[in-house]
């Protein structure tokens, strides 16, 4: 118990003293996760709309595949990206191995099923009367789509936050294709893993508390938006 308490004290100390290394690592974790989720959202929004609004054979199967991939193991994605971008792999020529770019690519693969899947169910949750009324009033297909998206905005926001949560808390990809390089690819999760291995439990707990605090701030911001 004393370890947990000391970890909490250490976390507060590190935050108050604006410890440069801790802030750098936290900033990098945030930057990489926000980038991955933004990229994923950029194509998941239109793609989710297409899948929702169009009827095509195999649609059900596609949606269940996407939902299955919600639980894809991070190490599996890490291994896939590693094999792809290693110098001995097909995309080795891009020299992206052990860089933050490779981590972003891995995280985009990781969070896209969640963001895409939740966007599709967000759109399905919109009252059918909304698009039907719009069509009866003479709205174009595009206008209907935008209207439905607007109706589903809170649920879409939840999709993004879920994706972000998965990205910032994952370690498999960060470790395998980032390599936990100090000052370059070290994130909160890989730093916690390393410090625990080194036996510095207090610092690990402190970093863990910082990670949870980031998640907390993001979720508080979200619920503020939803209460409006």
């Amino acid at each position: 118990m004393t370890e947990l308490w000391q970890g909490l004290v250490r976390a507060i100390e590190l935050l108050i003293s604006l410890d440069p290394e801790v802030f750098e690592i936290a900033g990098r974790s945030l930057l990489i996760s926000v980038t991955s989720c933004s990229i994923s959202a950029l194509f998941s929004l239109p793609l989710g709309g297409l899948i929702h609004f169009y009827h095509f054979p195999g649609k059900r199967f596609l949606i269940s595949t996407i939902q299955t991939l919600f639980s894809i193991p991070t190490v599996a994605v890490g291994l896939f990206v590693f094999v792809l971008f290693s110098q001995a792999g097909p995309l080795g020529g891009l020299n992206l191995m052990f860089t933050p770019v490779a981590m972003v690519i891995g995280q985009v693969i990781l969070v896209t099923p969640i963001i895409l899947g939740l966007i599709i169910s967000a759109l399905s949750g919109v009252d059918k009367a909304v698009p039907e009324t719009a069509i009866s009033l003479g709205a174009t297909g595009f206008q209907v789509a935008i209207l439905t998206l607007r109706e589903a905005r809170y649920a879409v926001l939840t999709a993004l936050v879920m994706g972000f949560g998965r990205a910032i808390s994952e370690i498999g990809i960060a470790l395998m294709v980032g390599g936990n390089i100090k000052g370059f690819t070290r994130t909160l999760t890989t730093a916690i893993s390393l410090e625990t291995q080194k036996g510095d439990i207090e610092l690990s707990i402190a970093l863990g508390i910082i990670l949870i605090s980031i998640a907390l701030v993001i979720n508080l911001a979200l619920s503020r938006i939803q209460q409006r």
Partner: protein
Amino acid sequence: MKSRLTVYTFSILATLSLLSAALGCSSAEGAELQPPKERLKVATTTSLYESGLWGYLEPIFEEKYGVEVDILCAGTGIALEYGRRGDVDIITVHSKAGEEKFISEGYGVERVAFAYNYFLIVGPEDDPAGLKEMSAEDAFKKLAESKSGAFVSRGDDSGTYVREKAIWRSAGYDYEEITKAGNWYIEAGRGMGPTLLMASELKAYTLTDVGTYLTYKVKTELVPIVDKGSILLNVYSAIAVNPERNPKTNYEMANNLVNFLTSPEIQELIGNYGKKEYGISLFNPCAGAEPEE
């Protein structure tokens, strides 16, 4: 109302991105997504990293050559694999047989020994299996036969693990039998530090390099049990990845690192590393020459 919400959402997203970008870039080392200057990728065995030696030497080398060194801390087996795939420029490892194979297959240029120390068998202070003062082989034999103490093995393709298997063979055992010998034999599958912590928690014996052991000593309740014998000699060497095999490798800078590690000043720093803190050297310098027992 709706547009206000959109503005809110976007401003929160924008603030987050800006904040993280600012935090990332505020540090001197930088978190830019693209590498800013020449980089050298080094894969090292865990003991050289977890003992803090690499953290100590890295800034000196970076300053001298104006290069950004990326250090990947992995077991010898993974480090050799990164080298084979061309994902790193140089490796610092400690498994002679594996290194010689790496070179004979054409992946590495030359094996340059730069430091050595000894492996130790460490265990709980009361020494339940009574292994003190024995040779490493006899100690393993007694452990396997009496089953009066547990043993935590690295079990992870590291240099230490390779040595452990060599000791079992030398003691006259088929290693396959040992892995099935019973609950007393535990394969951790982790780095040296975590393995020591695990052995301490379980009141078990384990084989460790002296450097990592001394670094972790205060965090464990393990004491040295066996520390003599030529089979316990532990040599660290640096191998630059062969540019003929992997043309993209930064061979010039890798060579600089080999010369740096074997230079008299750095050899002295390696020899003195940890002396103040632990009372004895963690590593003995052996510039370029293989030490003999």
